[in-house]
């Protein structure tokens, strides 16, 4: 088929396949562009408008198919001149012409002159705003493309471009186009001379402020929509992009700040916060005071948290803007004058502690202080002495507390990275204040010490004694412990506090060496806190090294400061005997062993090798009296990093797997068997990159299937879990077997149900099979396991006589799986959960109630269809005598249900309120509390 016929086919029948065919011909050079244009010429010149338009569309469609390197520079030029002429021909032709322009603009060989021609043609031949949305969009795409990649060409047009652009976008209302326009404007204000048209440019943008736009709900997910945030952000970027806008923008912001509409005020503050990068204070000198007044008013009388936060940030920004400009005492713009103004305005509020403005005023001053170092030292030097004086004069304890809170608040300056010194005299006075009131207000004083240390205020000698005395007293409250620990770590970390740190440590050590007693847990904890220093850690630690269970609990926090080999040879080895006595029952001992091994790297190879050679490979280790040694070894070996010890782990596995298996099958204690199984699983999991290990594991799993008893099933499930964790797809091989076992009405069924719990439980209790011990855990493993189990269990769900144990498993499963994974499934499971509530098996009630409760809380509407079954059950359970947590949860459910539409609840209301009357008289206070809550919700249903 030749070119002519194809073109005819398109023009007459609109056959879209033609586009592809012609495109292919052009790419394979069977057809030259010139011939094609000549062939289509008749149509382009046709007297019928529709034919001219169709021909242009065809050219556009074909060029769109070709790569953007296809056209030569001279071809582009000729096409451009031709299309330019078509633009003026008829308005119907303008749209396909703009499409073509867009394609040509993106050609890589287009030269600058042609770009200029194109832009001139767009600006002079047509009126952009008369186009439909899609064509306007194309125009802005072309202009943005030129601004981004052809800036030289745009700059040839200079400020004419700015003027023409203003005309082109004036009145634009479509959000998709606006985002593009704003992007263009951002580049224009940056790279073009906007001076002659700055006011017009500002006006054309400012009319969109503050942006109010609600995106339409789209039907299809593929359709791209513009969000409100996108528009707000791009508009803000334009407004804040150039300092020349300052003189117009600030009056506009002031106008919005004075309005009653909170969103307008928020938007204005948002723009202000972001404009300080570009704007200069000297351009807006006369507006600074009004701005200050408006911002402080917003902050002091904020209606909500959001406005307050924005206003405070705006105040900080204002002070930063002022701080940027050159100033001395005479200039009108002066940081000092503004700080004085802020103090003058807020000072009185600080004195009236019973009034509500104390904290807003404190926050305003703090926002000022946060701006820069000058501001903070000015605020500190006037406010802190004032507060300290007030503190001494006040009598009420809660007033004194408030003052301390304020001082602490003023000393928090998170944004300033550079070191700032407190004004002279103030730290000394504060230290005195701390030491005189440490006993009375320990919590406040500790926070204050922390903040002062952060500001590098060197404390006096008294602090050592105060802290020592405080630490050595008994019964420090938990919240104080946290603060104390933060203070001690702060002291420990910096070189400048080295002396005081050493002194406190000496004092503490003396406290138990002198009396020859064992140190208390708190003291030991504080000593450890004082070791948090990368250089001095080892030295300080050695001074009070004291093997105790508490020590084992605390030591891992120091590991980051110590070398791995030191940890292994000095800490792990010296604590080994103690670990033997603890490993059986103390979780921390297990974690300690595991942490020690996880820090081991290349440098520890010899230690590790000696360790397992002399311990694990020694046959006597398998005797019953050495059981504890074996446990310590297992937690240690099981936590070695694969990265460094892959080969060693393989050697260990090959050497001991037979013995280990033998132990598992013959041991008497279930707990020990459990740990052995996990260790076995741990090794298999870590070595699962090796096929021969997997094969071995699979053989063992097969063997377990032949003799079904408790131990074999347990080993089976742990090995399966070990494999699945690294290769989740393997679950498909095993899950059917497990389900089959679960269906049996013999003890095997119960055992299998228990096993399923092992599979779905990702808690820490299985330390040896977790990412902490460097096992291979596939990131999607939870989802895959759950989805598989659920799909296999679907038949159960429709089965009405679910065994109690199976129900138990299902409900338990729901408890274990993160809610986000099961969101879609839970609704289909709801009938089961509700059925579980009516079972005679009481053990499942609690967990199914919890699941139901979470569901009603997040998506109350899902319950509507089941309301007839669930409400009577919940009311019955809310008086269930045996378990108070069931009572509380069902009362909670009843409360959440009240968010349903009232006509659904009305039939039950009397009955529920009646039952609740008995619940508020429950013999447990916690139940009564929930009952009162629920009762109120039901009583006030239609209030």
């Amino acid at each position, binding site marked *: 088929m030749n070119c002519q016929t194809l073109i005819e086919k398109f023009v007459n029948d609109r056959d879209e396949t033609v586009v592809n065919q012609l495109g292919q011909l052009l790419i394979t050079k069977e057809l030259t562009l010139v011939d094609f244009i000549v062939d289509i010429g008749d149509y382009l010149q046709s007297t019928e408008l529709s034919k001219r338009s169709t021909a242009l569309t065809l050219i556009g469609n074909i060029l769109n198919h070709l790569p953007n390197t296809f056209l030569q520079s001279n071809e582009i030029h000729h096409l451009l001149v031709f299309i330019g002429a078509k633009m003026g021909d008829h308005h119907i032709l303008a749209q396909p012409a703009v499409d073509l322009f867009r394609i040509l603009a993106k050609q890589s060989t287009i030269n600058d002159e042609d770009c200029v021609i194109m832009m001139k043609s767009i600006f002079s031949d047509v009126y952009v705003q008369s186009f439909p949305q899609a064509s306007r969009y194309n125009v802005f795409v072309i202009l943005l493309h030129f601004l981004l990649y052809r800036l030289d060409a745009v700059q040839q047009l200079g400020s004419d471009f700015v003027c023409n652009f203003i005309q082109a976008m004036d009145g634009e209302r479509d959000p998709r186009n606006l985002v593009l326009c704003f992007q263009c404007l951002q580049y224009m204000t940056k790279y073009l001379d906007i001076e002659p048209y700055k006011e017009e440019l500002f006006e054309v943008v400012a009319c969109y402020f503050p942006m109010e736009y609600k995106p339409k709900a789209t039907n299809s997910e593929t359709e791209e929509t513009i969000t409100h945030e996108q528009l707000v952000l791009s508009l803000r970027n334009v407004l804040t992009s150039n300092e020349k806008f300052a003189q117009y923008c600030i009056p506009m912001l002031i106008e919005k700040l004075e309005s009653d509409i909170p969103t307008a005020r928020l938007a204005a503050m948002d723009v202000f916060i972001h404009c300080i990068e570009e704007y200069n204070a000297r351009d807006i000198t006369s507006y600074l005071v009004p701005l200050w007044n408006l911002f402080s008013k917003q902050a002091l009388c904020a209606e909500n948290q959001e406005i307050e936060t924005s206003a405070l940030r705006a105040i900080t920004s204002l002070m930063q803007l002022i701080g940027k400009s050159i100033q001395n005492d005479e200039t009108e713009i002066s940081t000092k004058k503004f700080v004085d103004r802020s103090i003058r305005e807020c000072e009185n509020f600080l004195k009236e502690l019973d009034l509500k403005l104390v904290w807003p005023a404190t926050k305003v001053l703090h926002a000022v202080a946060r701006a820069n170092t000058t501001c903070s030292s000015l605020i500190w030097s006037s406010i802190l002495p004032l507060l300290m004086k007030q503190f001494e004069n006040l009598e009420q304890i809660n007033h004194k507390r408030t003052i301390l809170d304020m001082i602490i608040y003023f000393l928090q300056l998170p944004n300033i990275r550079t070191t700032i010194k407190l004004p002279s005299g103030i730290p000394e006075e504060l230290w005195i204040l701390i030491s005189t009131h440490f006993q009375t207000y320990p919590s406040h004083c500790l926070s204050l010490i922390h903040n002062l240390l952060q500001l590098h205020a060197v404390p006096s000698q008294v602090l050592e004694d105060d802290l020592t005395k405080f630490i050595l007293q008994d019964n420090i409250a938990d919240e104080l412990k946290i603060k104390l620990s933060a203070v001690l770590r702060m002291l420990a970390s910096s070189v400048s506090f080295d002396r005081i740190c050493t002194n406190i440590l000496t004092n503490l050590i003396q406290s138990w060496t002198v009396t020859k007693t064992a140190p208390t847990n708190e003291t030991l904890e504080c000593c450890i806190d004082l070791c948090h220093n990368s250089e001095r850690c080892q030295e300080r630690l050695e001074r009070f090294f004291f093997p105790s269970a508490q020590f084992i609990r605390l030591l891992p926090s120091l590991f980051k400061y110590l070398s791995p080999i030191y940890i292994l040879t000095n800490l792990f080895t010296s604590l080994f005997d103690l670990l033997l006595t603890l490993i059986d029952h103390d979780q921390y001992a297990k974690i300690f062993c595991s942490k020690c091994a996880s820090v081991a790297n290349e440098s520890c190879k010899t230690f590790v090798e000696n360790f397992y050679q002399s311990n694990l490979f020694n046959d006597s280790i398998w005797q019953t009296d050495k059981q504890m040694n074996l446990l310590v070894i297992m937690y240690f070996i099981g936590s070695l990093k694969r990265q460094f010890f892959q080969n060693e782990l393989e050697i260990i596995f090959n050497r001991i797997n037979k013995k280990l298996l033998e132990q598992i099958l013959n041991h008497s204690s279930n707990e020990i068997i459990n740990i052995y199984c996990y260790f076995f699983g741990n090794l298999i999991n870590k070595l699962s990159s090796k096929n021969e290990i997997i094969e071995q594991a699979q053989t063992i799993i097969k063997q377990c299937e032949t003799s079904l008893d408790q131990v074999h099933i347990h080993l089976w499930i742990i090995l399966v879990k070990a494999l699945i964790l690294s290769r989740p797809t393997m679950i498909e091989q095993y899950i059917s077997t497990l389900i089959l076992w679960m269906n049996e009405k013999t003890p095997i069924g119960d055992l299998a149900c228990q096993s399923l719990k092992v599979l779905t439980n990702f808690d820490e209790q299985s330390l040896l099979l977790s990412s902490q011990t460097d096992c291979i855990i596939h990131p999607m493993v939870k989802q895959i396991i759950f989805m598989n189990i659920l799909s296999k269990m679907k038949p159960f769900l429709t089965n009405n006589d679910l065994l109690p144990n199976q129900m138990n498993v299902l409900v338990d499963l729901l408890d274990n799986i993160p809610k986000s994974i099961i969101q879609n499934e839970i609704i289909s499971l709801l009938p089961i959960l509700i059925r579980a509530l009516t079972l005679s098996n009481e053990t499942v009630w609690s967990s199914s109630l919890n699941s139901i409760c979470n569901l009603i809380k997040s998506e109350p509407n899902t319950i509507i269809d089941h309301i007839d079954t669930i409400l009577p059950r919940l009311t019955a359970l809310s008086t269930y005598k045996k378990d108070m947590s069931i009572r509380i949860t069902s009362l909670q459910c009843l409360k959440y249900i009240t968010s349903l539409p009232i006509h659904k609840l009305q039939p039950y209301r009397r009955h529920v309120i009646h039952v609740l009357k008995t619940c*508020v008289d429950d013999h*447990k*206070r916690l139940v009564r509390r929930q009952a*009162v809550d629920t009762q*109120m919700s039901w009583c006030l249903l239609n*209030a």
Partner: protein
Amino acid sequence: MDLSSGPQNLNPTIYERTEERTVQASDYDNDASDEIDRREIFDLIRTINDPEHPLTLEELNVVDLDGVTIDNQANTVRVQFRPTIPHCSMATLIGLSIRAKLLYTLPSRYKVGVNIIEGAHIQENQINKQLNDKERVTAALENNHLRAVVNRCIIASDA
């Protein structure tokens, strides 16, 4: 009662809230029984909102723990409250809110009495009489407008 005019006490003194009741180990023991005590009654009423201010009765010191008495043998509860100013026209409404809240939430075996602390209001006797007249309280709570106002006072206590 004129609710449309502006607040009478424009600048009330605000008091600190008491801390939440600490939960003890015995609270979780289903076999031990906890009697309803003064603090529990106080917890019920302290979160009621003042009709005029966005503050709770506790923050305005209208009610405090000492004003609550309970006798579990005789099944009686007595609450005394202190209007912020002696001529407060809201006193009856506050009293009614306290009554309503206790009516909704206390077990029905208790007989409840709500009074103004002696000497705290100029119309003390009149208001006390109104508040403790069962018929009048029920009638008041059946009045739609009044019930809406009372509900607004006690509903926010959930938040």
